[in-house]
Every structure is written in structure tokens, then in C-alpha cells.
């Protein structure tokens, strides 16, 4: 699924960080652990094709993603990778439904309202589909951002600190949803966190030092 080979990145301040090689198998669920500043976000950006590393290669489903053109890489990301950020960041001028349709169209997939409805239903927020992001609570917004990440049935689901801004109850719920959704959509799941509440749910761990 994912093969990380001899990847290292130089920060602008000259600091260099090297990542150990990483093989992720189809459908597996991983925890990416590391203290703040250890390069977690950098690694996630490298994995998702947002940040090109100075050395090494990243292959997803056999495609060496940094050999793609910028446009193809964006397209590849839209179709194959679903990303959940620490904060939901939905487009404020669009309704929940429109936010999901937008994700479909950016990936050049046809608008599929049934899929939108199914995903929202499986996350328990079907009744909010015509609401605007400002009308939803943090927990609901985080669910929408999960919905947006899985709407195109990605093969890889990546979450960056998805629980850190949530209380215990919501954190547990979101974590459960992530694991459930990766199961439903048969997606490989990588969760980057320093949140201790998350650790127990995973068996595979990649630790940054």
C-alpha cells in the first residue's frame, strides 16, 4: 500500500530530519506517534503528496507520487487519499452537502447524492446536510470532515491529531468513527497523534524519535 523509502527532509532553518522506512499493508490501521515538533505533520504532508521531500521516494499503490505532475498529484490525492485535519476546516460559504459534493467534483468524480446521503447517515449527521458549517458544533464538524475524507472511497485515510481539540466523549466517538469508516470503505488508516486516549485502539505503531 504505502512504501516509504529513505525519505529525509531539510527544513528552511537547515534542520534535517530523516524518516525510517515504512511499509503499510492494505487495510491495516496504524498509529503515528511522536511528540510535538518531532516531524509528525511533515511526515503526513510527505505521505499525502503535499510536501515533496528532498530525498527518498513515496509510493502509494505502486505509484511513485512525486514523479507525478502537480496537477496529476492533486488528482491522485483527491481520489485515493482522504485527509482529516486537527480542525475540520469546512468551506464556510457552502452547506454540508455542498462541501461533500465539492470533494467529489474536485476529484473529477460525478456528483453522487446517494453516496453523500449514505456517508452522512453512517456518521449520524444526515439531518444536517443543508446546514452551514457555522451552525454545527465542533464534534459535528469533525464528523463532517470525516465524511468529506471518505466520500470518494479513498484507499488511504490519514488523520492528523483528529481528537486533540475534542473532549473525552467526542474523542472516543470520533476515533470509533474513523476506525469504522476505514473498515466500511476498506481504507488503510493512519492516525497521527500524541493523544494518549487514542493509543489503545491500535496495534501497529510507527514512532518518530
Amino acid at each position, binding site marked *: 500500500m504505502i512504501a516509504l523509502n529513505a525519505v529525509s527532509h531539510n527544513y528552511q532553518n537547515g534542520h534535517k530530519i530523516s524518516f525510517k522506512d515504512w511499509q503499510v499493508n492494505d487495510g491495516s490501521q496504524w498509529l503515528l506517534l511522536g511528540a510535538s515538533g518531532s516531524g509528525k505533520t511533515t511526515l503526513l504532508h510527505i505521505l499525502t503528496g503535499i510536501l515533496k521531500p528532498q530525498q527518498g521516494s513515496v509510493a502509494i499503490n505502486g505509484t511513485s507520487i512525486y514523479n507525478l505532475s502537480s496537477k496529476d498529484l*492533486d*488528482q491522485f*490525492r483527491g481520489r485515493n*487519499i482522504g485527509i482529516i485535519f486537527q480542525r475540520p476546516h469546512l468551506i464556510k460559504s457552502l452547506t454540508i452537502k455542498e462541501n461533500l459534493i465539492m470533494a467529489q467534483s474536485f476529484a473529477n468524480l460525478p456528483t453522487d447524492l446517494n453516496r453523500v446521503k449514505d456517508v452522512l447517515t453512517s456518521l449520524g449527521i444526515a439531518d444536517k446536510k443543508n446546514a452551514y458549517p457555522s451552525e454545527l458544533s465542533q464534534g459535528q464538524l469533525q464528523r463532517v470532515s470525516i465524511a468529506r475524507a471518505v466520500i470518494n472511497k479513498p484507499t488511504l485515510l490519514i488523520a492528523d491529531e483528529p481528537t486533540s481539540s475534542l473532549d473525552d466523549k467526542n474523542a472516543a466517538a470520533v476515533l470509533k468513527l474513523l476506525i469504522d469508516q476505514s473498515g466500511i470503505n476498506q481504507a488503510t488508516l493512519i492516525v497521527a497523534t500524541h493523544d494518549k486516549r487514542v493509543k489503545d485502539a491500535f496495534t501497529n505503531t510507527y514512532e518518530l524519535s
Partner: protein
Amino acid sequence: MSPLKISWKSIWSKPLSSALNIMLIAFGTGILTILLLASKQISDKLENNSKDIDLVVGAKGSPLQLILSSIYYIDFPTGNIPLKEAEELARSPFVKKAVPLALGDNYNGVRIVGTDSNFVGIYKLKVKEGKFWQIDFETTIGTSVAENLKLKIGDTFYGAHGLAGSTDVHKTHAYKVSGILAPQGNVTDNLILTNISSVWKMHDPEEEKEHNHRTDKNEAPEIENKEITSLLIQYRSPMSVVMFPRMVNESTNMQAASPAQESTRLFSLIGVGVDTLQWFAVLIMFIAAISVFVNLYNSLKERSYDLAIMRTLGASRGKLFLIVIAEGIMLTLAGTLIGIALGHFALQFIGGNQESSQARLSGFIFLGQEAYLFVAGLAIGIFAAIIPAVQAYRSNISKILSKN
């Protein structure tokens, strides 16, 4: 969901600042539209009304005033000229056609013009209903006059002394409508035409009687002392242009004025005001462009995270560029459209409130040049949005996303 719809929704998500931008652009475009329409119509009217008239001969005074009063029926006449001298000029070999005019009365602000059948020929008039005036106190009225004053064939009315106002009414004789002109698209739409002797009789019927008594022995008493306001002249040959005006100005007590020359002079005077307003409108447009730019630039700061998220969802750099630039173009095009509509309605409103019906402006005339305003709107949109759009295109999404 197309990028255009995202731009569209984004505009609607901040209605106040979008409305401000659209309003600024609309005002600028509106002023330009009014200027465009008004100056075009004014110059057309100036040309139309003096098309076949090469020269106007009238009493000495301001040549512009003579033209304004005898061609456009706006200003007061310069005075009167003796009919005898006018007829001598009319018989000159330089002249192909000469039309005498006798002004002095109005009916509800519409000028009553005493003239002869040459007037029909020089303006190529046709009647829509009825016939041309033939006997004293018969009139043929312009199509706008019939419409505005609700006059029909057979109606009668009293003229009032002066060129406007209806305090001093000539009650002795009533005019009768004998014909209505077909629309001519020039000043004759707003005139009441009759023969010259009607105007004379209207003015001093008693004096005329006395006059006849006193000058029994005079062979041509009427011609001897009669006066008219001016004489419209059509030249026989281009040679006349050089000779005739000089002859009139030097050898008679009258003056000759060329409608073409005076119209050009008049329009150059108006032109100064038009130019000033034009620059003012351009300035407003420029401010509008800056306002759209600031609006987009600021919203881009807020939206940089949104745009980065769109990239993670698969949108290419090109799409982000399109989203931002489309937003700018939509704002300015909406402003341009509203501005053009505003300009037309405003001009129609101004025309409706104009006192002088002779120079009435219409807002419901569309010009090819208005397409340039669209192009200008588009250009302003691109100008205002290009920097934010390029920024969106170039943005380093990894940096933006990790800032949080």
C-alpha cells in the same frame, strides 16, 4: 460543483462587501453610460436638425444664439429682420432654397413657427394624418406635440406670446389643427407649424388695420414693413460657402451663421464638461477596482486555509486560480451590468424631467459602444483579481496547513 459555483457562493457569503464593490463599479459604469448615451444623442440631434441647412440669416447678435433659436428652437431669437431684405437674399443666385421663419408665440411651451412650404421641403416632412397648413390659422403639428398635448385634427387652441409661459394669450384668433406630422426624429417633432401671416395677424391685428389705412397708396405695403425672425438657407453650389456669408455680413444689416460651425463650437463647450465627468467616472472605476482587489486580497488571507484544503481534496492550482479570478470577474461584471442598466434608467428619468422638449434625451437607446463598457468591466475584474489569484495559485499548502 464547478469552480464557478464556488466563487458564486463565496460572493454570497459576504453580501455587504460584495454589494459595496458592485455598487462602486455600477456607479462608475452608470456615469460612463449616461455620458456615452447623452453625448451621442446630443451630437446626433445637433447634426440631424441642421442636416440640410447651410446657413441661417438673422438679426445681428450672437451667431450661436441665432443657431440655437432658429435651428434647435432653444434660445430666444436675436431679433427681427425686414422681410424685404430677406426676400432679396432669397432671390440671390447663391441660394437654392430659402425658408423664412417667424417665431414669437408658443402653446404650452411648444413653439409656434410661422413659415412657408419650403420648410416642408428642407426638412422632408410628411404628414401622418390630415394635411399641411394652407390658410391662416391652420397648423400642422409635430408628432410629439400631438402626443404630449393630446391634440387631434380639428382641435383648436390659443397661442400665447413669448417662447414659454402662457400668461399673455392671444385671444383674438384660435389656431386649428389641420394635420399631424409623421415622426421625423428631429426638432420638427416638437413644433407647431403655420403660415407666416398667421403669426403676423396674431401679433398686431389692430396695428395692421391702421397700417393699411395709412399706406393705401403704397403698392406693396405688406412686404414694405413686415418682419420675420430669420431665414434658413440652402446653398446652390459649394462656391456659396465662401461668398454668401461674407456678402450678408458685410453688405447688409443682418448676420449669417453656419449651423455646422456653431454646433461644433457648442459641442466643444459641452465637451469640456463631458471630459471632466468622464475622468470622474474613470476615477470611481479605479477606486472600485482597488476595492475589489482589497476585498479579494483580504478574503484570500482568511481563505488560504480553505484553498489549501481544496488542494488536498484534489483541486489543482489552476482551479484555485480560476475560483479566485472568477470571483473578481463576477463582481465587476455584475457591477457593469447594473451600472449600464442604471445609466439607461437614469437618463430616461433625466429626459422625463427635462424642460425643453426639443432636446429630450432618451434612456432606451442602446449603442454598440456599450460593449466597451463590458470589456472594461472584465478588464477591471481581471486587474483586481490577478494578484490574489496568482497568490492562490502559488500558495505553499504544506506551510499553510502546518501553521495551524
